[in-house]
Every structure is written in structure tokens, then in C-alpha cells.
């Protein structure tokens, strides 16, 4: 194996009203199952190493985390190098359970948008209420960014993490740069 290559090889841009950077590679596992089942929760927590998230939330700590994707789906995050082992471990925990755990680390691209205007950058692309009183760090939103599906959450007030499909990474990066172009502050939030 050679060194893993992310979709954009860590392309970044800091010219505008927010800093945009492709990060990764990150370990990501799609886990489908009955989210109320103990084994599912245990499998998620053992790899994600955070508390089990509420509906539409993402708990994260460093490269680990668990995002609530749908009533029967989680995205479990861990360091990229640990995914193989994590899947084996999960599948052991899930033995006998109707569940599906698959590696999607390379199927996604991950971006971080940082800076005081990150809410505005997102609000130019996603039909989502990003008011600080409404969308708070830890909430997870699956939606669209302009013309492609994407998901994001805020790690803190100044940092948003965005996940999209790998094939459209360049499009999403370009969109974010456009939305963050110099002089485009809205001063709305």
C-alpha cells in the first residue's frame, strides 16, 4: 500500500472571510442497525469513544466521534489507520445482530471551515437556519451544499466540519471558497 491520498491532497484556502481546508484522511464507518440496541450502541461507542449522540447530533473528540445520520444509521469516526481493526472489533460486537458496518473513509471528503464568518459561509450554500441560537456546536445536519448532498457540524463556535462525497470534493471546495470570497461578509449573525 502507498500513503493514502485524499481527494484534494489537503487543498486549502485562507484568502477570504473564512479558512477552508480539506483534512483527512479520517476513519469513517457507516453503521446501520437498530440504534436502540445495546450491541449497536456498544459497537459505536467502542470505536467512536464519545457518548452516544442524540438525534441529529454529533459528538466528537479529536478524530473520534459518532454522528447521528438517520433513525437506523450512524457515522462512526476514528483515526484512518485504525479502521480495519475497528471494523473487525465492531463486527465481533455485532455478531448475531442484524447490522451493517462498512468502511466509507475513502468515499468521503472532509473539510474544515474556520473563522468568525463560518456560519455565513455555510448559510450561503445550505438552506439551513444557522443562527447561533438555533444551530449550536454539536448539532449535526445532513442537507445540501448548493447542488450536492453534504453533512456538517460545528466542533466549536469557530470550526465547522463538512463531509461530502469524494467525487465532488473539488466542487465543494470551490463552492466554499466562492462563499468565503474576500469582501463577502454578510454580517448577519
Amino acid at each position, binding site marked *: 500500500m502507498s500513503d493514502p491520498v485524499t481527494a484534494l491532497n489537503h487543498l486549502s484556502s485562507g484568502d477570504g472571510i473564512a479558512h477552508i481546508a480539506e483534512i483527512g484522511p479520517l476513519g469513517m464507518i457507516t453503521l446501520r442497525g437498530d440504534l436502540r440496541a445495546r450491541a449497536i450502541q456498544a459497537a459505536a461507542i467502542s470505536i467512536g469513544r464519545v457518548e452516544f449522540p442524540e438525534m441529529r447530533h454529533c459528538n466528537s473528540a479529536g478524530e473520534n466521534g459518532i454522528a447521528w445520520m*438517520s433513525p437506523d*444509521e450512524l457515522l462512526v469516526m476514528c483515526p484512518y489507520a485504525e479502521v480495519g481493526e475497528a471494523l473487525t472489533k465492531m463486527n465481533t460486537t455485532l455478531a448475531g445482530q442484524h447490522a451493517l458496518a462498512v468502511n466509507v473513509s475513502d468515499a468521503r471528503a472532509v473539510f474544515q471551515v474556520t473563522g468568525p464568518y463560518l456560519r455565513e459561509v455555510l448559510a450561503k450554500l445550505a438552506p439551513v437556519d444557522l443562527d447561533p441560537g438555533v444551530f449550536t456546536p454539536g448539532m449535526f445536519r*445532513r442537507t445540501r451544499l448548493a447542488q450536492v448532498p453534504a453533512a456538517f457540524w460545528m466542533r466549536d463556535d469557530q470550526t465547522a466540519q463538512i463531509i461530502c462525497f469524494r467525487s465532488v470534493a473539488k466542487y465543494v471546495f470551490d463552492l466554499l471558497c466562492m462563499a468565503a470570497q474576500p469582501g463577502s461578509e454578510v454580517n448577519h449573525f
Partner: protein
Amino acid sequence: MDKMLTLTCPCCNVTAEETEFHAGGEAHLKRFGPGSSDDEFESYLFTRKNPKGVHFERWRHNNGCGKWFHVARCTTSLEVFASYPAQTYAPPEDILVHIDTRRPGWRAKT
């Protein structure tokens, strides 16, 4: 601008604009497969209600949690009466009762 409705997905509780959703046509169709009569199959495959007023529809939260759900909606005023799970064979009674209050006498018309 088209796609102007807002809907609430009962699977993830998100209220979002129509661009997050995909319309899936009439709800509560009964599938007819092999062994069904020509009439049954025709009605399943082709015969659709096109009411002016209360309608039950299928929608998918495709730019979201990905789940299908049902919506009770007025096709003329665009009022949304309720959304409810796709895993039902008929609209829940409490929703029907709510529609009664909003559109008295609607049941007689359908």
C-alpha cells in the same frame, strides 16, 4: 422559484425547504403483483388520484436522513396538515380528525 414548500420529516424531525426533499406521488397504494387481474394491476400501476384539496403523498428526505415518509397536504392552498411515517397502510385517525377541523366535509369529496 419553484420548490417552495416546507415539510417536516417525521424520521429526523427536521423542518426544511422542499429542495431537501423528493416527491414520490400518491401514498398508500396497494401493490398488485403476479396473479393479480388486469384491472387490479392497471389501477395499481396507473390510476392515480389528482384531487383538488386534501391529498396524501409520499416524500423522501433525500438531501437529509434519506427516509421516506407521508404527508397530508392540500393541493390548492398548499396547507400541510401533517407528516407521518411511511410504514402505514392508511393515514392515522388523529390526522384525519385534524383535517376534519381544517376542511369540514372533505371526506365526502374523496
